[in-house]
């Protein structure tokens, strides 16, 4: 377990370096499976190495993920502060464009979950826009149930998988 988390840390650092190293690369950002993250990390050592306005900044210092109820797509109250932080962060880095990914748990047909994921991504986008973020800066994409971050077939896992993740799609600081 210790070994695993160390590896994870290395992977995280490696991806920071990788992303910081290149200027704009939308495909890479979209294609790279995000390192497992369910909310803002508290580790001081990591956040200090993060470039402000970068994807990692968003992930680590702002919080990139919100969660949804089963077969639900409205933003939950406890997630609104996360999105408010995201909106503020987006105001702070006006060049940054983001894509909101909508994800579902495995309990739904493939097609239905693609549609549900789109609803979730759109709900996040609408909330960000309601907080003053230009809709032109926020794109959405649905992955349905195809990109889980947890594979057990139980409620704790399903809850983690029902999520909206905001990722930087361009204009990030380097």
């Amino acid at each position, binding site marked *: 377990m210790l070994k695993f988390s160390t590896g994870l840390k290395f992977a995280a650092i490696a991806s920071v370096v990788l992303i910081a190293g290149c200027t704009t690369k939308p495909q890479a950002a979209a294609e790279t499976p995000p390192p*497992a993250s369910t909310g803002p990390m508290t580790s001081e050592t990591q956040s200090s190495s993060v470039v402000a306005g970068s994807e990692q900044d968003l992930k680590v210092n702002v919080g990139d993920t919100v969660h949804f109820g089963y077969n639900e797509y409205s933003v939950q109250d406890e997630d609104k502060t996360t999105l408010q932080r995201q909106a503020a962060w987006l105001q702070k880095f006006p060049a940054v464009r983001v894509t909101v990914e909508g994800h579902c748990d495995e*309990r739904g*047909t493939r*097609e239905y979950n693609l*549609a549900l994921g789109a609803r979730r991504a759109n*709900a996040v986008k609408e909330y960000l826009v309601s907080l003053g973020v230009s809709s032109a800066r926020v794109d*959405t*994409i649905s992955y349905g149930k195809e990109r889980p971050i947890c594979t*057990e077939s139980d409620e704790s896992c399903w809850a983690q998988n029902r999520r909206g993740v905001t990722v930087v799609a361009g204009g990030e600081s380097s």
Partner: protein
Amino acid sequence: MRRIGIAFAAVIAMIVGFAAPASAQLRVDVTQGNVQPMPIAIPNFAAPQPSDAAAGQNIAGVVRADLQRSGLFKSLDPKSFVDHITNINAPPTYANWRVINAQGLVTGQVQMQSDGRLRVDFRLWDVYGESQMLGLQYFTTPENWRRISHMISDAIYERITGEKGYFDTRIVFISESGPALARKKRLAVMDEDGANPIFLTRGDYMVLTPRFNPSAQIIAYMSYISGKPRVYLFDLESGRQQMLGDFPEMTFSPRFSPDGNKVAMTLEKNGNSDIYVMDLRTHGVVRLTTDPAIDTAPSFSPDASKIAFESDRGGSQQIYVMNADGSDQHRISFDAGRNGTPVWSPRGDLIAFSNQSGDSFHIGVMRTDGSGARIISNGWEDEGPTWAPNGRVLMFSRTLRGGHGSQIWSIDVTGRNEQRVQTPGDASDPAWSPLIQ
């Protein structure tokens, strides 16, 4: 005179009336039987030239496997045969096949022709009826021996069951590999029996829900190749893929119309998913649903007059049917749980669907008015049914509990003969081709 005639007729009628039941012999109503695979003996096909012996063995082997896999036949072990077929043109000694309880016997012969083609003959015999049921002959290039085998299987299947076979078909599917949290998904095709698997995409982008067109030449599917999930067409002959239309947001769940000229699919806009039909010749697009609910997974009826789809407009995901122009949208599934991915049988009599009760998913079938729904599969997460071209067998995706991978399974429409389909590694989203032309 006339009165006498009437009286005479009455007498006749009386005689006939009494005589008829008198001649009625005992009638025995048989309403219960014993459904079981038909035992069939398929010796290796004879080869007058020793150099053709391997082909004779291979062809018989594929036919045996095909029929066995259908669940309607029991291919008897050649080791149990007490007779050896040398002349396929003479009726067999039926008693020698009754000894091993064979009801059917297939004899065949392969002969390389001077022009380089392979000639394959076979005959199907009714062992108890002591008659030939079928006899066919094929010429082909030797490389095609597998297809010939499948065609022979189809002919036997059709003669015995009364319906077309499905062995000379292909399956397009998603080949899955890699860890559960970073699945690699590639478009792939294979023969119905799992032979000849070919990967069509590399797996560096996700692909989902492939469907054959009626000529089995073009595949419609969803791909993330551009970073955006969109419906694409893949031409098997050229290997070229092309985005279908140019839509601002996600397009998904494509399915061809029965004539192959249209694709019904779902367009998502601002989180709302609706069903559209695109004409592939004119690229004209017609919107069929306008509901703010999720409307997706359209499937044409074989006569193209109707489209089944799923919608959660009533609160939960259920199956609806509408006319092909979008009119008369009405719900047909009222059973417990959620119901989705309706797929109209090519036979026209049933709609297969994915049912979710509690946390698990099963494949079900219902009549096209929604009546007679029954669940036929029994996995943890079974979804995405696809029909064999004869409407008799279904394949579907089975995801194992706890992220332990995906498999393709097949099942008879009666719920019998559930079995795993051989695939290169994990696989999902099968779609059955029509019979190859």
